[in-house]
């Protein structure tokens, strides 16, 4: 059970970071273009 919760938290972290990285890359592209 704890392992499952940890796995879900891990997936949520990946998704949040994924969105943050894409937003960051887009901002990087726009700032320097």
């Amino acid at each position, binding site marked *: 059970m704890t392992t499952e919760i940890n*796995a879900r938290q*891990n997936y949520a972290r*990946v998704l949040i970071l994924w969105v943050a*990285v894409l937003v960051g890359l*887009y901002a*990087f*592209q726009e700032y*320097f*273009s």
Partner: protein
Amino acid sequence: MHPIDWTIIAVYLSWIVWDGLRLTKRSHELEGYFLASRSLPWWAVGLSVMATQLSAITMIGTTGQGYEDGMRFLQFYYALPLAMIVLSVTLVPFFHNARVFTAYEFLEQRFDAKTRAFTSLLFLFSRSMSLGVVISAPAVVLAVVLNISVTNTALLIALPTAVYTMFGGVQAVTWTDVKQVVLIVFGLIAAIVVLVLGLPGEVSVPQALRIAGATGRLQTFDFSFDLTNQYTFWSGTIAAFFLFCSYFGTDQSQVQRYLAAKSVSAARSSLMMSAYWKIPLQALVLLVGVFMFLFYLFTPAPMLFNAVHDRELREGPRAAEYGTLEGRFVTANEARRRAGLELADADASGDAARLTAAGSAFAAREAEVRSIRGEALSLVREATGDESYNDVNYVFPTFILTQMPVGLIGLLIAAIFAAAMSTISAEMASLSTATVIDFYRRFAKGYATDRHYLWVSRLATGFWGLFASGVAIWAAELGSLIEVVNRFGSFFYGSILGVFVLAVGFRHTTANGAFLGLLAGMGAVAWAASFTGVAFLWHNVIGAVVVVIVGLTVSAVEGLGRRVSGVGS
């Protein structure tokens, strides 16, 4: 190259073989040899997965792509974290609970022997050919820059790897991968530092990036929906999602890595490492290319990065034409350098109108330099008869050899060797596993001692090592044939994913449904590749979707037939 650099390369090659061989003692039975007794920690598996993907083609090809084209290629990886999550939830627990050695073994448990044998055969065919290319691509480039023969560079890459993989098995592959990926990342960071330090004093890093931005090299998002364009946001998030699910979920060279993890949780965590780090790592590789562009903006750049072709044209019958072109190139380069400095100055001034004008002027000078370089490349194409010739793969090695300090040159060349070896070791091990488990043990000799299977496995690894070396050495002559073979390989990536989707997601799927679906999917992809301009990434979507639709339809018809005959009897 300085003797110190040759020594560093020699020390690296000797050390990595010794390091792999000392793990032989942990590989005395089949599960130990192929799956490290399912005992590896998540972080070692995670780093090994990343090392396998980071091939020498990435080191020399992707940096060259960054130099020529910028960071657009990054979009290709946007779906990777999503694919990792989906695989962690779906296929990873199935594989682990099934206690299989190969992904295809799972298909026999779920469907039948012919589906397993066919998918495994497709894997053996495509992976063995791609293994040859993974060796030959850096071998050809390193042969030019190190001034030794292609045969020697191919053997320098393949033989040490075959030796430690043959004796040390997956233990050796994984633990050498861990060290190799550290060396590769260190090398890339060192290259970035040297490149940044090489910029002129009056141009800061943000100003340099503004210059790169003016040429479109920092573009990482293209929202146009064009099925014929490989690198758009949509192909990177939708089509590449299918490719990554197929590659990480069904390709034995990847599946074998996380089957060696000590638990389902460790296997999932190892995939999450790629989910976190793959995009930043790929961005780092492409940034090396972008900074090389900036470096050569202010430092005299060669017109052609392949020194052999440069020399041939200079000494050949078209030397006068080449000389004139080079004169134009030097003038255009100087104009571009001045335009770059003006752009940096305009950026510092904060004057928006001046910045826009300087940006446009710089883009025009850049287009001129590109056009002259294009003419030079055309001269090489005419001289060599190779119509697809490009020298982007030579940019990074040339930079390393001509601009890096002594010591770092050896380290960076060793990092290119490491990138090649970390990829081919995993591929050799997976080819051997599929050969022995899916064919030899399944069809030839079902009952034998572990010692016997281990002996056969080592022979199989050695065989694939020699086979790949042979393909690599002859790849230059085969040229377009190898390309055709690899294209054929891409025909069934999505289709194999479709079979696994049927296996895991649709419990009513029959063995015939899965097999006929697979054939239909491959046929659909072959049709799309031959008669439409759809970019290859989308072939994965077409293959997977057709397999699932046909597989479910055939299964439904079979089920209906059984029910009808059941009612009738």
